[in-house]
């Protein structure tokens, strides 16, 4: 079980929850479960979401494991210049 | 619209071409003569990427008509190196990393060549004002100015 923090716009789409507990071993599973629980998140996830695990931001490595007790943050997937 | 026959000298070599009355020297150099080192950044004389030396004057080739080249001497970046020996400015631009993307570089080299021909030992301020007609968006000009200073010193034999 990991605790995941959602940023503002995402929390609004997750019925106002800014923190949710999810049983997930990696990023792929996390996205799948969140999407099942809060269908409103799906369009935002399609637009792109990054995951910060203990401060390191992952944009594409969906196989990345979520260590127990890790600090997990969902963030918008950003554009750069 | 009949073409105008023009006979001119480019980088020391005789060149002849036909051009439209409203065709710029920049268009002629790039599209008719294949001298693509001359770049177009704006086409209105505001960026200096198309700089060439026309007789003894530094000009933007986008503000010169091809027809005006008749009987003149034109120097472009393609004529700076002697065989495989780079011009000191070219060498110093490389050593100082005075280019990032490099699109403005030919114009800067030509402008700097003209500057040093007229003022072999310029101050930093003279270099900065002398090159103010050439825009560079990558470097902040710092390394360009240093490269010109260094090249000037090499060219003076110092």
């Amino acid at each position: 079980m990991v605790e995941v923090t959602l940023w503002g716009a995402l929390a609004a789409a997750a019925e106002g929850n800014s923190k949710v507990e999810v049983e997930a071993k990696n990023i792929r599973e996390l996205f799948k479960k969140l999407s099942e629980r809060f269908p409103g998140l799906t369009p935002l996830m399609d637009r792109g979401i990054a995951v910060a695990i203990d401060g390191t931001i992952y944009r594409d490595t969906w196989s990345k494991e979520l260590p127990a007790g890790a600090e997990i943050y969902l963030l918008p997937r950003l554009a750069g210049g | 619209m009949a073409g105008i026959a023009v006979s001119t000298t480019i980088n020391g070599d005789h060149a002849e071409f036909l051009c439209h009355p409203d065709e710029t020297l920049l268009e002629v150099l790039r599209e008719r003569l294949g001298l693509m080192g001359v770049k177009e950044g704006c086409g209105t004389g505001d960026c200096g990427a198309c700089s060439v030396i026309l007789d003894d004057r530094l000009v933007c080739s986008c503000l010169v008509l091809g027809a005006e080249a008749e009987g003149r001497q034109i120097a472009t970046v393609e004529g700076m190196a002697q065989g495989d020996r780079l011009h000191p400015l070219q060498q110093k631009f490389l050593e100082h990393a005075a280019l990032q993307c490099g699109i403005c570089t030919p114009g800067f080299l030509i402008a700097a060549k003209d500057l040093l021909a007229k003022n072999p030992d310029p101050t930093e301020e003279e270099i900065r004002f002398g090159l103010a007609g050439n825009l560079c968006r990558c470097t902040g000009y710092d390394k360009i100015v240093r490269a010109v200073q260094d090249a000037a010193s090499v060219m003076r034999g110092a």
Partner: protein
Amino acid sequence: MRYIRPSSLEDAVGLLAEASGKAAILAGGSDLLVRMKGGFIEPDLIIDIKAIDALGRITESDDCFVIGAAVPCAVLGENTALRHAWPGVVEGAKLIGSKQVQGRCTIVGNLCNASPAADSVPALVAAGAKAVIKGPAGSRTIAVEMVPVAPGKTSLAPGEIIEAILLDKRPPHSGDAYQRFTPRTEMDIAVVSAAVNLTLDDQGVVEKARVALGAAAPTVLLVEEAANILIGSRVDDSTLERLAEVCSGACRPIDDKRGTVEFRKKVAGVLAKRVALTAYQRAGQK
């Protein structure tokens, strides 16, 4: 479209007079080619006047300098006698565009472009320069300030060409100066500008003065009231303050992408003060 390079002024005037469509004079090309590129003008005939020998020279007679219509501004700066006599005029001419543009642009082109912000015009107006005009009906000579009548419009009749600009030789103790305001140090168009031309008496009192402002009205302004303030003074602080006030008041500028009405008024006065001081110092040294 045709491109013709006549070798005599008469031929040029003839071509211009006979042109059936739109004809354009090409000297430096730094305005013409930009307007052609932007599609603002599509001439049927381009008359390149640079092969006309007399137009490419600066000559000196006993009483004046004659600057040919095809002389690039860079050449003005290289003429020692002209630079010494009319440093303000040369300053203005040398501020047009970049070094690349300097090698091409001409003061006559700058004048005929009829922009209120033209850099060389205020100093020419302050200098009392004259334009020699050749046309189908012969020659005439008029003050340069009579050439532009509105932004982009001149008083030249169809078929007329400006052949040269005349600048008088200077009496002793004379000096002129020009400054413009631009956000960048180079490669810019005047937001507002000022030129002052002074002649002093032996005691250092201003005897004659002309003050001109650029980009302050639809055409360059010759501000007589400002000149009157300088005349009789030693260009002291209180004179300068009054000069600034009068110049600011004389402006009739617009708000545009380059500046606001308030800014132009204020800075016109500031620049007038600064150039008056420079002109006074220059005059005192001669």
